[in-house]
């Protein structure tokens, strides 16, 4: 409610003194656009009020938009503008030109039912207790155009926002803000470790690292109490934008985002699937302790001829917990059955390193003769990180497998668990980017215009790293903290040109500095066909040159047609169709040899030859030849004076020219919406959306044993061709994914005078099916009868559904006091085969999971009573 009346001069004077002391300015109550990213943050809001200022949106002005006409105008495409707010002039502050108005809404919220349901809490920190719905205090000086406004809302200490904004219209604007936003990842997590949230996960006293049995681990897991996994995003910032001198406008902003909490993570100690009892697969919890500081500076000048904009963006990421150590409870056993000499029981992850980003950009534009405009932009950016590198492993003692002299695959951890084992101590990583973008636009006649554009962008990764251990003279890194080489002989992860056991190990020894240069040319024109119809055609040629990829050149040509008519039986109809065709130069299925040890001196080909890198007929989906078509129709029909019916239909089709790889993707969807606002006091909306998508993939399994080919370990392993011994046709399989999503909403609100009712209902539902076929059981990883039977059964469908009903009833007790009753009832159902069975146990042999996934069914309610005071 904007019409704030009453006599609270004392409060307002105090507040004004405080706020004006900071800025000497005042605030506008009506406009709450969150503004550009130059000043301020994204949309402020929370689960109680996603818009961030809903209590201030009522009542609408009963006189409507204008005294010139009845009803509401529509946008150029036919949608109704909402009724404007009833603006109050506010109350005077002292004897000056300032006025103030304000609102305080607070109360109590009670959460009942399955209050810990994951999808209920995902982005909201609902708790029973006192809440601050909204605090708003605005000051205006209509004479000078100056303003100050303050907003605040608090559901909990992890779910709140506060914002102070001030300035003078047409002159400057300054803003400071603070906000906490929760993000819950899981509410049904059972991590067995101590130290969750730290960099060191240790086992409870009842378990011994590297020496516990699956039964012991299962017992501990079953007794572990439930906890939530998630993080809180805390953002704060200060920003300014204003006139510096004449036509020069500058802006400066600094934003700090701190993310703290936990996230589900991995903890691999090598496979447990093909090697039961040998390895270990863990689901751990990692810490989140990030800080990202963004700095944005800009200066612009709008002259009579030239427009100029210079910007600097800097982003500085800091991770205060840059690694994760964890203890593995399971003993590891090698697959050859010799006595286990390795004692690998700890794992370590290197987490995200500190890094910096800088980007400077210059934009220029000017008018051209012939009703034209020319714009050009250039930018240069660099991303750098030079964090201290962690040792290749954290293991101690001996790793690997000893079979019999001279077949000794053991290694000494001491040679690998210090930074002396690194070829250099810091990452020295750097990616530079460059951009040039030019465009001309001409409108030589009222009914005809054209434009042309040229864009060039390069991303150049200058990082070069060779994984070489000066202590041993070996290359590569110890894989899986030494566990892999302690389970399978020789899979240590290293290449040694002097050791016959390792001189044929083809392991990764260099980073791949992926990069690309992209040039885009665009030519388009628009015709006005009559007073209400237009046609646009745009041709785009995208020439991409990837580095260190399967193709050196990829060309994507696209043509797009847009047709718009604002009078098709009274409706606005927008149609678009586009067709694109992508091809390129010769496809090299293995451009990566230079990053493997096979490229190093001293590498000896295995007796059976090097296994093929992958099947030669594979075409990766981002580089393969492809045709694409997209169509979209949007209809907006003004239904009488106070209603709008709109519908959207769209479809995308992609076909990939690949024997192996992605085959097709398609998406088809539609939305229908009805909006009705017969009077300023009443609004009603209904919405329905459906979308279906499908994806087809073709693949082939490599031959891993004599029963499904003659590949690995034989001469045939060098043959990369589909139909060859390594990739026989019998091992082909095909995946067909289907997804459908549906959502619907209905809302109604009516102002009865002293009371206002709000009702809304929302539904979301999704369905996913992973389907597949295969040429023969040779395509299966498990070809025993149980495995074949499981493959025949297929995957169950994935389903997700929520229903939410919100009810609100607001009473005006008197001019300055109101009461709001609020209720929400939400139900949901969740079924995902990835989590199947985990509600019974999280422990399977040497595999230990932490997250049980979303609740299969839940229902939860929120009720609250809020007091609403006008200040």
């Amino acid at each position: 409610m904007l019409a704030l009346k009453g006599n609270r001069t004392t409060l307002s004077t105090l507040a004004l003194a405080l706020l004006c002391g900071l800025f000497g300015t005042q605030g506008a109550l009506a406009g709450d656009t969150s503004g550009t990213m130059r000043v301020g943050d994204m949309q402020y809001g929370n689960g109680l009020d996603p818009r961030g200022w809903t209590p201030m949106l009522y009542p609408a002005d009963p006189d409507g938009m204008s005294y010139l006409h009845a009803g509401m105008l529509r946008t150029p495409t036919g949608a109704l503008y909402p009724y404007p707010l009833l603006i109050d002039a506010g109350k005077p502050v002292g004897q000056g030109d300032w006025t103030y108005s304000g609102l305080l809404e607070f109360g109590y919220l009670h959460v009942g039912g399955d209050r810990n349901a994951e999808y209920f809490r995902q982005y909201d920190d609902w708790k029973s207790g006192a809440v601050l719905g909204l605090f708003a205090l605005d000051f205006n000086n209509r004479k000078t155009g100056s303003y100050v406004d303050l907003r605040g809302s608090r559901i909990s200490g992890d779910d709140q926002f506060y914002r102070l904004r001030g300035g003078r219209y047409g002159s400057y604007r300054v803003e400071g803000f603070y906000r906490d936003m929760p993000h819950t990842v899981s509410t049904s997590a059972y991590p067995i470790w101590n130290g969750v949230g730290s960099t060191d996960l240790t086992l409870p006293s009842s378990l011994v690292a590297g020496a516990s049995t699956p039964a012991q681990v299962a017992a501990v897991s079953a007794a572990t109490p439930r906890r939530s996994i998630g993080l809180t995003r805390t953002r704060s910032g200060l920003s300014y934008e204003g006139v510096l001198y004449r036509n020069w406008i500058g802006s400066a902003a600094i934003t700090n985002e701190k993310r703290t909490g936990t996230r589900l993570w991995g903890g691999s100690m090598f496979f447990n699937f093909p090697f039961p009892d040998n390895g270990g697969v863990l689901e751990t919890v990692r810490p989140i302790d990030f800080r990202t500081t963004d700095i944005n500076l800009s200066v612009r000048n709008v002259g009579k001829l030239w427009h100029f904009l210079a910007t600097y963006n800097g982003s500085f990421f800091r991770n205060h917990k840059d690694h994760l150590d964890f203890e593995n409870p399971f003993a590891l056993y090698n697959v050859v059955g010799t006595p286990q000499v390795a004692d690998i029981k700890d794992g370590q992850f290197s987490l995200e390193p500190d890094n910096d980003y800088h980007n400077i950009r210059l934009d220029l534009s000017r008018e051209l003769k012939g009703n034209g405009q020319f714009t050009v932009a250039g930018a240069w950016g660099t991303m750098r990180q030079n964090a201290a590198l962690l040792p290749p492993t954290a293991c101690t003692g001996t790793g690997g497998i000893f079979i019999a002299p001279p077949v000794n695959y053991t290694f000494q951890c001491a040679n690998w668990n210090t930074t002396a084992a690194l070829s250099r101590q810091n990452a020295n990583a750097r990616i530079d980017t460059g951009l040039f973008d030019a465009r001309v636009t001409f409108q030589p006649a009222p009914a005809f215009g054209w434009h042309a554009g040229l864009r060039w962008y390069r991303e150049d990764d200058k990082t070069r790293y060779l994984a070489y251990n000066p202590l041993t003279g070996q290359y590569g890194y110890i894989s899986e903290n030494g566990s892999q080489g302690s389970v399978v002989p020789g899979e240590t992860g290293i290449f040694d040109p002097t050791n016959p056991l390792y001189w044929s190990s083809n392991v990764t020894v260099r980073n791949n500095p992926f990069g690309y240069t992209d040039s885009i040319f665009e030519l388009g024109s628009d015709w006005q066909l009559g007073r209400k119809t237009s046609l646009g055609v745009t041709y785009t040629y995208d020439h991409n040159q990837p580095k260190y990829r399967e193709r050196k050149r990829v060309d994507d040509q696209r043509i797009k047609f847009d047709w718009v008519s604002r009078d098709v039986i009274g409706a606005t109809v927008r149609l678009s169709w586009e067709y694109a065709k992508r091809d390129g130069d010769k496809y090299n299925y293995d451009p990566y040899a230079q990053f493997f040890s096979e490229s190093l001196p001293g590498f000896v080909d295995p007796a059976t030859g090097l296994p093929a890198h992958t099947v030669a007929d594979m075409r990766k989906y981002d580089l393969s030849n492809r045709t694409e078509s997209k169509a979209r129709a949007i209809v907006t029909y003004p239904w009488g004076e106070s209603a709008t019916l709109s519908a959207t239909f769209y479809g995308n089709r992609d076909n990939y020219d690949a024997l192996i790889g992605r085959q097709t993707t398609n998406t088809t969807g539609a939305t229908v919406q009805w909006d009705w606002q017969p009077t300023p006091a009443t609004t009603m909306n209904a919405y329905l959306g459906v979308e279906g998508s499908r994806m087809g993939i073709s693949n082939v399994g490599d031959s891993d044993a004599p029963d499904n080919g003659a590949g690995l370990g034989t001469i045939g392993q060098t043959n990369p061709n589909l139909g060859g011994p390594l990739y026989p046709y019998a091992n082909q399989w095909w995946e067909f994914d289907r997804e459908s999503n549906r959502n619907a909403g209905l809302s109604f609100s009516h102002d009865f005078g002293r009371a206002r009712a709000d009702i809304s209902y929302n539904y979301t539902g999704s369905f996913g099916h992973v389907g597949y076929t295969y040429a023969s059981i040779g395509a299966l990883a498990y070809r025993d009868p149980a495995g074949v039977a499981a493959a025949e059964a297929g995957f169950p469908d994935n389903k997700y559904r929520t229903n939410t009903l919100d009810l609100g009833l607001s009473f005006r007790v008197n001019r300055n006091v109101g009461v709001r009753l609020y209720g929400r009832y939400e139900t949901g159902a969740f079924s995902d085969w990835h989590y199947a069975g985990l509600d019974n146990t999280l422990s399977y042999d040497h595999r230990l999971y932490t997250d049980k996934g979303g609740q299969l069914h839940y229902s939860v309610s929120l009720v609250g009573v809020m007091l609403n005071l006008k200040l």
Partner: protein
Amino acid sequence: MTNRTSLLGVFLFGCSMAMGCVAQQPAADAAATPVKLLDQRRMQPISGDAQAGAGKAAVCAACHGAQGVAIAPTFPNLAGQSATYLYAQLKEFHDGQRNDPVMTGQAAALSDADMRDLASYYASLAPKPAGQADASSRGAQLYLAGDPAQGIPPCQGCHGPTGMGPQPHPSSAPQPPWATFPYLRGQSGLYLTKQLGDYRSGMRAGSSNAKVMQGVTQTLGDADVQALSTYLGTL
């Protein structure tokens, strides 16, 4: 939206004039009861019996002239005026949204049919012949193009380029009640000056159209008002 017009507005039509126009009651003593704003946004063009109206217009002629051209510049010319506008004004006088020492009393006794007939009658009369307006004057500039720097909209948008009513483009968008806007060509400059002043001061604010004019007149200075009145009086 509360209308406090009755507290503020008294329209002076030169009440000391002819005998039929002598004030019959004190002005604006309906002050105590706020009168509801007359919302003209949905008003349709009216119809009436002009012949019958002629028979009821005898008393009006005392001020507004036998052929609808006023006997003195303090009174508005009614000949050729929009019938719907005239009807709306009589209704405002009748219902209290507009007050005048003379007209309030005169309209009080009129039935709705009387008002329609009178409005139709005066609309049917030939308007005052066109004058010799100065097309290069400040008044002409304001009327035809406004003054964007001062936020003054062009008057012709609602009153028509020749002051003989608007010429709207066909559109499916909600339309202003064109018929309720008065024709201004040849209107008395003195009368226009008075009305623009009343809009600006809030004395004439009892209808949605008056609210529009209130906003417009806030942008006008005294010289602008004089320039416009002069231009229109000679148009």
